[in-house]
């Protein structure tokens, strides 16, 4: 149905950010938490809108903006992610000297960019959305202005991100040249019709893969990830590890699931993604073994997870991909939330050495962190396990047995470094006292929500699976 309602999610988020931007000027520094509450309120409204529009299939601008169930589902989890990120940021910003009202503005802009991306199937719109997301992200990464690491993260992210964007644009240009279209369905159709522009289209597609591969951090376009994740303010890292990854895969999904339908035409691309998935899983996990900084460990882990998600793309199973992303959202934000919880004024505890004995000193934080790590490692009965279960079983159904074996072996490696954090938390005696700020209710709410999400998805995922299957039923998007 072509209606202006379709604009609702984007509009409300943009409106929220503008409102926050204006209010920021009038609010005193200590009252800035109201900005967060306002943002949260708007996010709830947006989420409610997503719920309301379920199964309605609204679209606008000739389909440039279409709220299919899948889009709505993505919107919904992105809003949840942002919601959680705001929750974990509130206290953090004051503690870590980054209490700018613009923080929420940028975060909401980034969210709007992501919503634009997932609710469109036109590469131009997606590109613009991506740039909205990216520009906000660059700024967010550098938001702890006094912190050299944060600066460094911003500049690395910015330079490499723009570099990758250039490839993306070039790729879009090639695709445009090959198919005279920028809408994904037409492009896929054009590519599959086997025109004489085969190679041009293929290379264009390859360049697009590079562009988005950078965003979702697959090897070898992952190099920025650990540095940016380490340097960026931790809530933002949590955001980076979930948001851009989700939208990146949402786009790849739109392109490749229809594209892979035609097995003959897509063989080359399939092989390419196969290789990328394999090396991503392997390299991400292997490098993570060597890390001693928790944020870096989680960074490499998110690279590895991109590999698993790539497997889902190859398995051409939207459902498992979406489920994986949902579970990943909760466990990863949860893990970062736990990392944030271990901080005090002007200092965060990020080295493994700091984690010695934390598990018993702060039993609740320790236990929830352990649950997230266990989930990331893929142990039942957590969402992480079920997510891997779905992805890999879908992959086996596609006959990707060897890739799945690589995947499970890689995740075996991952068990080591996830459990390593637990070792430090529970099995080593502290060598010095770690004082943290416990007065952080919003953070604990976020921790609880993530914990709930991880366990709910692991033990009783029924409802969400139903939702996802409804979302997927609307294919093609």
């Amino acid at each position: 149905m072509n209606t202006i309602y379709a604009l609702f999610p984007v509009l409300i988020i943009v409106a929220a950010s503008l409102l926050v931007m204006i209010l920021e000027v009038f609010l005193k520094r200590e009252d800035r938490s109201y900005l967060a509450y306002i943002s949260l309120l708007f996010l709830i409204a947006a989420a409610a809108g997503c719920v309301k529009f379920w199964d309605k299939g609204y679209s606008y601008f000739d389909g440039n903006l279409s709220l299919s169930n899948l889009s709505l589902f993505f919107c919904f989890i992105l809003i949840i992610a942002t919601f959680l990120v705001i929750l974990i940021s509130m206290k953090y910003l004051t503690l870590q000297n980054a209490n700018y009202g613009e923080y929420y503005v940028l975060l909401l802009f980034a969210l709007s960019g992501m919503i634009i991306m997932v609710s469109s199937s036109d590469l131009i719109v997606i590109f613009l959305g991506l740039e909205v997301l990216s520009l906000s992200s660059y700024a967010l990464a550098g938001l702890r202005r006094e912190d050299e690491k944060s600066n460094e993260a911003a500049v690395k992210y910015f330079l490499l991100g723009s570099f990758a964007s250039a490839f993306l644009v070039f790729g879009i240009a090639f695709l445009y040249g090959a198919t005279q279209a920028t809408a994904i369905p037409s492009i896929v159709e054009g590519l599959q019709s086997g025109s004489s522009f085969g190679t041009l289209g293929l290379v264009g597609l390859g360049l697009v893969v590079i562009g988005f591969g950078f965003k979702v951090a697959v090897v070898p376009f992952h190099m920025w990830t650990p540095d940016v994740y380490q340097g960026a303010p931790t809530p933002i890292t949590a955001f980076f590890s979930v948001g851009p990854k989700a939208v990146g895969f949402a786009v790849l999904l739109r392109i490749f699931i229809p594209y892979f339908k035609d097995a003959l035409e897509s063989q080359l691309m399939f092989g390419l993604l196969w290789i990328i998935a394999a090396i991503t899983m392997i390299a991400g996990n292997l490098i993570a073994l060597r890390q001693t900084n928790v944020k870096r460990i989680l960074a490499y882990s998110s690279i590895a997870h991109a590999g698993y998600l790539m497997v889902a793309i190859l398995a051409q199973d939207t459902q498992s991909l979406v489920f994986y992303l949902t579970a990943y959202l909760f466990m990863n934000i949860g893990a970062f939330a736990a990392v944030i919880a271990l901080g005090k004024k002007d200092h965060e505890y990020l080295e493994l050495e700091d984690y010695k004995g934390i598990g018993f000193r702060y039993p609740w934080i320790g236990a929830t962190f352990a649950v997230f790590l266990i989930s990331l490692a893929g142990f039942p009965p957590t969402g992480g396990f079920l997510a891997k279960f779905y992805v890999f079983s879908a992959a086996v159904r596609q006959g990707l047995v060897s890739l799945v074996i690589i995947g499970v072996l890689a995740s075996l490696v991952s068990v080591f470094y996830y459990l390593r954090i637990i070792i430090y938390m529970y099995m080593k005696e502290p060598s010095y006292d770690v004082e943290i700020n416990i007065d952080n209710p919003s953070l604990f709410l976020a921790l609880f929500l993530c914990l709930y999400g991880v366990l709910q998805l692991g033990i009783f995922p029924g409802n969400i699976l139903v939702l996802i299957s409804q979302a997927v039923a609307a294919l093609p998007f």
Partner: protein
Amino acid sequence: MAHFLFFLLAIICIASVLGMIISKDQAYTALFLIVAFVCMGGLFGLLEAPFIAAVQIIIYAGAIMILFIFVVMMINLRKGVGPEKKKWTMYFAVVIAAVLVVELVLTLKGTLEPISSAALESLGSPTDLGRLLFTKYLYPFEITSILIIAALVGAIVLVKKRDKE
């Protein structure tokens, strides 16, 4: 004539990019870039995109490069850093560039013929362009506004003076 213009512009463009790579002076670098962008504008014109050519020169060569120069002057590192001195890096760079060019050109193999044969008189006037922008491309156009605000906010928050405690 058109050929001549094309090659002239192309050579100047490539040369100034090379100049940018080789030059050590920040200001020269920026100037080389402006030259390249202007040439690019010319090339756009050759491709029957007068409006875009104008935009290119105004926004790129004008606004963006002024911004660059502005920053260069703020930083005031006139004796900046040249390109990499280590020889292997340069060799490496040349090899990579060559391979990249070869690969991408090979991509065009099949496309060479159809594109060159397609010779159309006119694509349309800036009016058509404007109409298109506000009808078919309204949504992306609106998005650019979000993009610009976001960039604005981002830029400001990063460079504004820290407010006092």
